[in-house]
């Protein structure tokens, strides 16, 4: 108890003396956490969006001729042998025409002069939910295009590829901003502690002569790092939350963003970000002390 109260008083005294550099470190840690968390939040939401898009994924195989019942059974067997699927739906020329008519609504008259059998028959394949990787989808599509009578396979390939590249790019940004977070946080904290150690060299020397233990000298510096981690990450996350609210308020409406339901971090992820920041700040403080404090 005496140890704790003494250490807290010492930490308070140190913070009071070195508040300008402590404040700058706090701002840097907050900004680093904000930048990292911003990209991480987008990435997480994109992954979620990708998963929900996967739920609606369907591959359409356009056929030359309408398959007879035996042929339909054969095609189902071949498809399911290659990859298990949720559902396979056959669409005849007539069904396709009716579907198009209903989709056109009031403009149905554009079909007046057309032959109702001008649309090709097709098979709609709904793959299982775990089929999310673009490579797997491509491989499946290539196989489907080799089925007897298949003319073309469509699954929104361009759109999926663009989405895939975007999430890949986001992953790189998240990793880079994560590295930035680690570097800036540890560097800034260790630099602040280094300045504090150098500024208090005379005091530390006297403390050693008076019989101060290592823990007496080191613990306040570690607590400073710990506080930087707690407050820096909390401020960064609070700023991100307000930014998130602002984006939701201003960018909800028709368009791409409406496809994605943006959600904030779960309490678990918030906890992990705060803990990681605490770990980085305390680690930076500890390594700086080991380097510059000879005790």
């Amino acid at each position, binding site marked *: 108890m*005496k140890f704790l109260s*003494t250490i807290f008083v010492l930490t308070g005294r140190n913070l009071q003396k070195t508040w300008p550099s402590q404040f700058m470190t706090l701002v840097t840690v907050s900004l680093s956490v904000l930048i990292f968390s911003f990209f991480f939040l987008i990435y997480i939401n994109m992954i979620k969006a990708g998963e929900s898009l996967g739920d609606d994924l369907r591959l359409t195989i356009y056929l030359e001729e309408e398959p007879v019942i035996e042929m339909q059974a054969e095609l189902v067997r071949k498809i399911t042998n290659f990859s298990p699927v949720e559902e396979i739906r056959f669409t005849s020329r007539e069904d396709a025409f009716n579907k198009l008519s209903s989709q056109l609504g009031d403009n149905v008259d554009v079909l007046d002069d057309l032959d109702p059998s001008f649309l090709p028959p097709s098979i709609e394949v709904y793959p299982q939910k775990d089929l999310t990787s673009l490579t797997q989808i491509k491989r499946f599509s290539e196989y489907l295009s080799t089925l007897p009578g298949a003319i073309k396979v469509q699954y929104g390939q361009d759109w999926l590829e663009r989405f895939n590249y975007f999430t890949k790019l986001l992953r790189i940004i998240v990793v880079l901003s994560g590295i930035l977070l680690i570097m800036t946080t540890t560097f800034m904290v260790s630099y602040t502690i280094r300045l504090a150690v150098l500024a208090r060299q*005379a*005091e530390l020397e006297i403390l*050693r*002569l*008076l019989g101060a233990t290592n823990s007496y000298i080191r613990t306040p510096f570690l607590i400073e790092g710990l506080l930087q981690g707690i407050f820096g990450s909390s401020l960064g996350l609070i700023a991100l939350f307000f930014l998130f609210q602002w984006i939701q308020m201003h960018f909800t409406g028709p368009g791409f963003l409406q496809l994605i339901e943006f959600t904030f971090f779960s309490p678990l992820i918030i906890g992990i970000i705060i803990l990681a920041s605490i770990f980085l700040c305390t680690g930076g403080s500890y390594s700086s002390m080991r380097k510059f404090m000879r005790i």
Partner: protein
Amino acid sequence: MVEIVRATKIYPPDVVALEDISLSVASGEMLFLTGMSGAGKTTLLKLICGIERPDKGMVEVAGKDLNRLKPKEVPVLRQQIGMAYQDFKLLPDRTVAQNIAMAMEVAYLNFKTINKRVVALLQQLRLEHKHQTFAGNLSRGEQQRVAIARAVANSPSLVLADEPTGNLDSKTTALVMKLFEQFNSWGTTIIIATHDDAIYRKSNHRVVELHSGRFIPTDKRTAKTLNNMP
């Protein structure tokens, strides 16, 4: 309390500060260490409080051989030794009270006790009005008294004072000596390095004199000092 056996200290390249000296100071004793400037008084005090290590010989304090002291034991030993340095070693940007309190804070004394002791010591040394003054704004004489107050603040079992009256007038010297006498009467071992013969001339305590890093007999009170042991 203090046992020094054939200790030699040489500073690079070849300055012999202490040569083959032996000294025994009993627990509760008060000893004056005299000699001219450069005689080795400060070096001897540094050996006793473990700031310096002897190149040869042994220094034992409170039954502990300082050469064999584990790093963890050093702070424990230093808390038992109060040292008033010749250059005071005060923090100029801290108040008088904070400077004195440091010695007790490292021993994790509670803040109430620390405040009480600080006030009592300042009263005893007639510095109560300087409680909140920054140490850097004090005169040298006042700084010296603060350094002495810090040395005795944690009630150490051994007090080492290096020229404690060097900057004081006779009246203040008497105050400081009274403080040392008081602590000595409570059982604290005190070693005072000084070249001011006025403070030990009329005292009954043992006096040892250093000259060029060696003890020289001064009077009958040096009987316990063993010089150049075979």
